[in-house]
């Protein structure tokens, strides 16, 4: 079966539609970073990066990089008017102190309890955590962007995470290639799915029960990249 999946850019586009004007937002490395491209017209979020910039703008032209203006992924960004620079303790005061409205992160697994695993696949290899554990415990709303399944087709939305946890009960919304899902005390609550996919088909690639709560909308996104 070929699933009617959104591309990564489309997942980011869909998530970006829910970022409010003026929201303070931290975008994780990789897929979440793409959200910055797709802000709806008339809205401007204030993007935060752990290394001490609030209100940074898009990447500079190649060759115009200033390597003292970078994001958490060590990519060059730019300073928009009204940006602020601060040290790491102040940066994580913003994070831990509940001042950021939203953290948009990637995931290896998300559990129906809101548990998140996104920092380590197992006991081997070199572990690296960065700011993920701070973000999931401090930011007001933690949302995850991810493919709905792993490369070999296994569910990434699960009953219980089998990989080491990043945080306990922290995720409240997931945007996947196949669904928009809220997490509340019942577990996964389906909000959107592709029009061409039945609830049973979606449930078959999801590792924990999908609840519904009123009508499920169609998951759509324009062609973007």
């Amino acid at each position: 079966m070929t699933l009617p999946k959104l591309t990564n850019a489309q997942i980011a586009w869909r998530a970006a539609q829910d970022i409010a004007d003026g929201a303070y937002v931290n975008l994780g490395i990789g897929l979440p970073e793409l959200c910055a491209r797709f802000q709806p017209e008339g809205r401007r979020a204030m993007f935060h990066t752990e290394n001490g910039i609030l209100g940074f703008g898009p990447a500079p032209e190649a060759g115009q990089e200033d390597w003292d203006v970078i994001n958490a992924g060590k990519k060059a960004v730019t300073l928009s008017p009204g940006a602020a620079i601060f040290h790491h303790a102040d940066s994580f005061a913003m994070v831990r102190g509940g001042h950021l409205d939203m953290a948009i992160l990637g995931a290896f697994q998300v559990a129906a309890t809101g548990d998140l695993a996104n920092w380590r696949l197992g006991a081997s290899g070199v572990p690296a955590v960065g700011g993920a554990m701070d973000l999931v415990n401090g930011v007001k709303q933690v949302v995850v962007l991810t493919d709905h399944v792993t490369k070999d087709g296994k569910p990434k939305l699960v009953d219980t995470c089998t990989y080491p946890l990043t945080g306990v009960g922290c995720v409240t919304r997931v945007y996947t290639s196949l669904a928009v899902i809220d997490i509340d005390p019942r577990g996964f609550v389906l909000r959107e799915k592709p029009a061409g996919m039945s609830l049973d088909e979606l449930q078959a690639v999801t590792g924990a029960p999908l609840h519904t709560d009123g009508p499920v909308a169609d998951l759509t996104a324009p062609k973007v990249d």
Partner: protein
Amino acid sequence: MDKTCPTLADAVAGIEDGASVMIGGFGGSGAPIELLHALVDRFRATGSPKNLTIVNNNAGNGGIGIAAMIAAGMVRKVICSFPRTSQPHAFNEKYASGELELELVPQGTLAERIRAGGAGIPAFYTPTGYGTDLAAGKPVAEFDGKHYIQERWLKADVALVKAEHGDAYGNLTYRLAARNFNPLMCMAAMHSIAQVTRIVPLGEIAPQDVITPGIFVNTVVEMPTPRQEETRVRDQEVY
């Protein structure tokens, strides 16, 4: 996103009865006197906000600012390090009569508790106060052979601060040592209100010169001609 507000009265209109209010400044330096007077005006006109808990290093001097709030009867409790001032009569009278509760906190612990509130640190250990009356009832722990007491974060509903420049995103700078408690209080309050001498266009404050990033500020109101507490007290001004 525009955090500017046209008037001092509008800026303080949302402060509710029983609110905890952090007030910046050390003595008169960095004290948002005009915001405080707008609050006194509102109280006189409407009876609100009352039963306030205020947090400041001091507890008012002369007949203006915090002293005017206390004299007006808006304040139920003061959290501060040093209520003694050159003209402490407003505080002393209400304190002696039992109308005003005092929580005395060592100055560095006060600053650190406020920072902890802003930084999401619910408790920390400090050597300050160990073995003294101000440690009464606080958990004690030993680290590396030395004794420390546990202190809790301090947060507030509102912060009122005085800054020099501010922009529409809420970025602030302070004039010289008027910085003092102001940046910490902006971090620790649910709603931070800054009176600024000048509202400047976005980008006029260079990113590396911002002292309080706008994420910690909700309302910016211009007060181009603030008069310093020291001058007002010298002039025996009573608000």
